[in-house]
């Protein structure tokens, strides 16, 4: 089978998407680390780091559009480029949630946590595990693996509900915790969105591999 340079170009583009995913992952991971430690310096580094993610987004989009213009791709090539264009938007958003969590750290500058954070790091790890699975599926063109992501996202959603209720209890019992608890709820909400966007990456991966387009089950 003949491999044209164009197909190598598509593979290279896919590798850039995977590298961008690593950046987005780092943003969320480090964002929560900074938040858990209430480390303003680390938070500022996460904020600055988001420029890298934005650069990757813009660069990959430009390259994908060039490839479409130059080669008029068809079938799985077209689907790979279409999926990549959507996926980098989701990755950019995921990176942005890391940025928002870093901002939450700055909002609590000079304060301490109500108690040691447990739920939020767990939620982060679960949301990032979904991201890892989606990106693995994308890299390996593995629709079966991508299909495992959506159901697992329910777990992240459940954790969000749990943190939300826990914070409400704190705030009712002790109004002085409201500043912190408001940020906990926001951070948990951002992490819940990380999970949702990982699910969208999985959906686009399924489309890329099989051509099957599914409606987002969360809005059904």
């Amino acid at each position, binding site marked *: 089978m*003949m491999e044209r340079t164009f197909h190598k170009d598509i593979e290279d583009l896919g590798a850039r998407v995977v590298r961008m995913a690593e950046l987005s992952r780092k943003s969320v991971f480090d964002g929560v680390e900074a938040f858990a430690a209430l480390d303003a310096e680390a938070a500022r580094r996460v904020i600055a780091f988001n420029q890298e993610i934005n650069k990757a987004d813009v660069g990959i989009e430009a390259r994908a559009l060039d490839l479409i213009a130059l080669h008029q791709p*068809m*079938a799985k090539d077209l689907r790979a480029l279409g999926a990549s264009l959507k996926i980098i938007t989701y990755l950019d958003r995921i990176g942005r949630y890391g940025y928002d969590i870093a901002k939450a750290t700055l909002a609590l500058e000079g304060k301490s946590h109500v108690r040691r954070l447990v739920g939020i790091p767990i939620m982060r790890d679960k949301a990032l595990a979904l991201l890892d699975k989606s990106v693995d599926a994308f890299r390996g063109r593995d629709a079966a693996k991508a299909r495992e992501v959506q159901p697992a996202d329910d777990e992240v959603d459940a954790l969000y509900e749990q943190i939300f209720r826990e914070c409400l209890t704190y705030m009712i019992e002790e109004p002085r915790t409201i500043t912190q608890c408001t940020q906990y709820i926001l951070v948990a909400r951002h992490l819940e969105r990380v999970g949702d966007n990982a699910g969208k990456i999985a959906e686009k991966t399924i489309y890329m591999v099989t051509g099957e387009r599914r409606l987002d089950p969360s809005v059904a």
Partner: protein
Amino acid sequence: MKTIIESKGLRVAFGQKEVLHGVDLAIPEAEITAIIGPSGCGKSTFLRALNLMHDLTPSARITGEVVFDGRNIYDPGVDPVDLRRRIGMVFQKPNPFPTMSVFDNVAFGPRLLGLTRDEVHKRVEESLKKAAIWEETKDRLRAPATDLSGGQQQRLCIARALAVKPEILLLDEPTSALDPIATAKIEDLLGELKKEVTVVIVTHNMQQAARASDNTAYFLNGDLVEHGPTERLFENPKDERTEAYITGRFG
């Protein structure tokens, strides 16, 4: 969706060499069907079989059926002249009658049909308009057809084919000798024409098939591999041979 013409188990051989191995393909009425495939896949052979063009090749042997208007066009009683009036053909290279004027090229068919002078005039104007070449030729109808540019000549040939009011128009790579602007004009024209005539176009330009057709059929080595709605076939082909061809992983 109504079928206007349909091949059933159509086989075409030239001498010992069979080039179509039993093709079943139904062409929907009032739509544009594109036939794509690599060189030698049998796509032009298929197209020509739809209006009895192989009758002109002594070594050609045809089995199976092409059903049009309720009968097999290969039945002995079918009048090839009448059939070719109802199923017109436009070729790869523009081939206006070289010694005739623009007007006479288009008037040729209607005159053979015995139309009156006035009717012929009306028919010529109507056909040139349908082929989107009236504006460019109305002031030079008496000029030799060969004075026109390549793209204009091809539209003239389409006008000539339309002048006898065919039900189906077959086009065999009609734009492969034309520049992109002339090509775009012909593609736009096809979209207009399908309102009154079914179009079957053979093309080796996949983007053209993707842009201009409603249905696409992919031929390979004398077999019909896959056919279906154009958007589906180019976005998500079912057969991996189609996938390999349209993504350029072929060969």
